[in-house]
Structures are given as C-alpha cells and as structure tokens.
C-alpha cells in the first residue's frame, strides 16, 4: 500500500520533470513560462517549509522572508567570493545558505518556546525587519543596493532537484514519529508533554528545519536572479508565503504546492489587467478565504461541486 504510493509519487516527479524538460528544451513553452519555472519552485520550497511551522507545528510566523534572506546572502556571498567550479560551488552554497538560515531558525525558535499566537507573530515579524535593517547597512553585502554580480548558475534542473529533496525530507519527517510529535504539540501541548513528547526539542527542530529550507530557497532565488536586494525580503514577502500556506491548507503539503504554483503564475497571467492587477489579487484573496472558511459558503461550494459531478456522471 505504502510502496504503491511511493511509486506513484516517484512517477509523478519524473513525468513532471520530463514535461518541463520537453517544454523548455524544445522551446514550446513561452519565455514567460520558462522564466517562471524557477520562481515557482522557489516558492514551493518556501511554502512547504513554512507549512512545517504554521501547519504542522501550529505556530504563526511572519518572518519566513528573514530566513530566506540570511540564507540567500550567506550562500550567494560564498559564490561571489569563491571561484570554484560550479558543480562544487553550487552545492556548497546551498548547504551554507541552509545552515546559516538554520542557525537563525534556532535563534528565533527561542522566543517561540515562550510566546504564543499573535505575540510570536509580531516577534517573528520584528526579526525579519531586524535582518533587513542590518543587511541594509552592511556594506560588505552591498547594503541597500544589494549584492550584485552573483553568477546566475541556478537553473530549473537544480531547482527541481532541490524542490524534490525538500518535499521528500519534509514529508518523511511529517510521516515519522518526529512529525507525530510536532503535530501533537500543535493539537495539544499539555497532552503532548503528558505522554513524554519533548516540546522544546521538537519546536526547535521544526524552526531549524523550516529555516534551513527557506535558506536553500533563498540561495536558489539569488542564483537565479543574479542580484539580492534587502528590500525584497520585507514583511510582504513573508505574507506572500504565508498566504500560499493558508490557501493551500494548513498541514497539507500538496495544497501548499498547488497554492504556490497558482499564486506565482496567476499574477503573471493577469498582466493584461495592468493597473487592476493588485486590486484583483486582493479581491481574489478575500474571496478565496471566504469560500474556504465561511461555513455557509463552504456548503454552497460543496453543493455546486457535487451537482456538477453528478451531471458529469
């Protein structure tokens, strides 16, 4: 049963990659779509990793862009200052970015042990702002002008491999006893402690692991774009990732993937709306939240869907 599932997932992963390969290498896909592949994959990594904290651990953080930025800067600083062959440099950069972000994940995990809900949210938001503020005034990483001259060695294959690694690691963690502990803490801290779940350890672990992958995503972002600017990693970026997680469903990895794809591609497809684009995005956000969380509307939606299904049958 389980093996069968694994085989299906592996097959999907391979087919999707082959599809990407075919679309890109034959030039069938438009430039716009080719160009969107890496950002989509970056956002998937970000959303899935944030889901570990928000969806599985049940803590609200608004500082994911902060983890992303420290990882991005650390990894990209390495590639800028070292001139190693790309096949050595790139993996090392990802590890450096991930580990640096993980250290920050550990640091921000400490208040998470003491604070809950909105208080933790504001602390993580503050953390993101502190990082940005410091990066802005650090001339060694380019200050507000940003880190320039990063070799653009990230491509869709690298990004795809990283995304698959992220998915495997996070979903394997979730479906192990460690993941159960994390979910137990989310559902009821006191009960979790009463059956011996080490709350401190697992909270820390979730923050560290999530930050690690955010850092990796950051390096990938920088390697793909060639420039990093502190202003990119502001509070709105964290919100953007959070929206993906909430929209895709908390604690639902597949949902995060789908939401990341939609929310990255949709604004690009809406370019024709020009000035009305942000307005449309805002409305879409509100309507989607209403449709996914309001009892009456949820019922209404289900009725429509079940009817259309019957008609199809």
């Amino acid at each position, binding site marked *: 049963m389980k093996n069968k599932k694994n085989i299906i997932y592996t097959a999907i992963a391979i087919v999707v990659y082959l599809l990407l390969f075919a679309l890109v290498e034959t030039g069938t896909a438009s430039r716009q779509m080719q160009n969107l592949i890496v950002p989509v994959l970056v956002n998937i990594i970000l959303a899935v990793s944030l889901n570990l904290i928000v969806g599985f651990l049940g803590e609200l953080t608004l500082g994911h862009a902060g983890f992303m930025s420290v990882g991005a800067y650390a990894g990209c600083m390495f590639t800028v200052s070292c001139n190693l062959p790309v096949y050595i440099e790139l993996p090392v950069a990802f590890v450096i970015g991930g580990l640096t972000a993980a250290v920050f994940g550990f640091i921000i995990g400490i208040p998470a042990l003491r604070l809950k809900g909105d208080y933790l949210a504001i602390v993580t938001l503050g953390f993101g702002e502190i990082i940005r503020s410091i990066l802005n005034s650090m001339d060694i990483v380019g200050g507000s002008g940003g880190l320039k001259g990063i070799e653009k060695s990230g491509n869709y294959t690298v990004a795809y491999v990283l995304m698959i690694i992220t998915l495997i690691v996070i979903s394997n*963690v979730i479906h192990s*006893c460690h*993941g159960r502990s994390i*979910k137990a803490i989310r559902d009821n801290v006191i009960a979790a402690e009463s*059956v011996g779940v080490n709350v401190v350890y697992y909270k820390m*672990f979730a923050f560290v692991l999530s930050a690690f992958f955010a850092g990796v995503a950051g390096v990938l972002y920088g390697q793909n774009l060639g420039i990093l600017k502190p202003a990119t990693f502001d509070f709105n970026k964290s919100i953007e990732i959070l929206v993906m997680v909430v929209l895709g469903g908390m604690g639902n990895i597949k949902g995060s993937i789908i939401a990341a794809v939609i929310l990255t591609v949709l604004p690009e497809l809406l370019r024709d709306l020009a000035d009305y684009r942000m307005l449309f995005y805002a409305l879409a956000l509100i309507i989607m939240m209403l449709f996914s969380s309001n009892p009456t509307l949820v019922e209404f939606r289900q009725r429509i869907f079940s009817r259309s299904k019957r008609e199809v049958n």
Partner: protein
Amino acid sequence: MALVDIRQLGISFGGLRAVDNFNLTMDDGQLYGLIGPNGAGKTTIFNLLTGVYKPTDGEFYFDGELMNGKTPIQINKKGIARTFQNIRLFSNMSVIDNVKTGLQAKYHYSMLDGILRLPKFGRMEREMTDRAMELLKIFDLDGEAEQLASNLPYGKQRKLEIARALATDPKLLLLDEPAAGMNPNETAELMNTISLIREKFKVSILLIEHDMSLVMGICEKIVVLLYGRVIANGIPDEIKNDPKVIVAYLGE
C-alpha cells in the same frame, strides 16, 4: 516500599490555598479513588503529581525517587501517565497516531532513520502499529483506527485518552473523571475496562470520579478532599459512613 508516597503536599495560587497538607501512600497495583465536591482541588493534585504545577511545599516520592521540580516529560518517563478532565486528544490526528505518539518513547528511531527511511524506521513503525492496534482493541477502538480523533463520539474519546496514556507504559495511571458524560451502560463497561487494564498492565490507578457507584464499586481505597484538605481516607465502606463526608456532600 510504597509506589507513591506524598508528604504534606501543598500549593497556593496567590492567596488561595488550593491544596494543603495532602498525604497519600499507594502500593503497587492499588486502585485508589480521589473524590470531593467541585473545586475541592482534585485536579490540582493531578497537576501537582504530573509536574504541570510546582508544589509550594511538601514532597512527592515515586518509586522511591523525589519528583518535586521535575517536568511533565520527565515525570512521564518515570512512569506516570494521566488523562484530563476536559479531554485533551490530538484531535487533528488519527486515532492510531494518538496512541503511537504515546508509544514513541519506547520505539524510538533517530531523525535520520525517519528522513532517509532506513530499515530501522520500517521495523519500529511496524512494531508501533502492532502494539497500538493491541491497545485499541482493548478499548474496542480498533475499528476506528484511521479516523480523526475529533470525529469519535465523546465516550470513545475518553477511552482513547486512556489508551494513549497506557501507551507510555506507566506504573501509575491518573484518571480524571473518566466516566464524565457517559450513560450508565457505558459507565459499567468502563468499570470493566479499568479493572481489566489494571490486571493486564499491572498498573496502579488513582481515579478522580463523581460517579459514586463507579468509585465505590471498583476502588480499594478512597481519599476525600474538601477545600484542598483531606477529610477522610479509607476503604469504601468507611467512607460511605463517614459523617464528615456525608456533610461535605449533602450539607448539614
């Protein structure tokens, strides 16, 4: 040596003396009842014993070891498990995962085993599943193993909580009003189950309960609490006829 030895345990919240001078000894395998009117401090005692609250005075020895100052996790590892008055399940996890969370301390594997799916992961998970199913069977929950815990009816949720507590393999089980909200049939069934697990798991039980028939029926000894103080301690027959207890429950 007694399994549980509580000496002059007490706690104050601000100026309120919630529990005062509480003494209790329990032997291996004993089933003790803890009763008293609402607000007498019964659940507070559970919280003191499991490390949720730190006692302001007194000592609590368990299996010869001082438990004061230990965290709930450490206390659980020493062999004390509990259920809660207001059910605290992992409501968004499946029934079997609730029990497996309790089993994890015994069937442990490292993070790396889990991420890389090394052989140890498969072996441990299989053993955990088998053991969890055994436990669920005892409580007649094996049919609902894959359901979400929050979808279970009330009575079954209470049972699941006991199963989860038992999964940690405790020497002492603290049950906080396990029969609350059950109908007489379910209560009777629960009495049987409690007796059964006591036999099968060789576990001592401290039981808080309002249902007098349940307490009187299965407890070997009963301690009665009023305003945080013990007013009676003895076998059910003694308690039944103790004038102080009657006054406490029925008024003068």
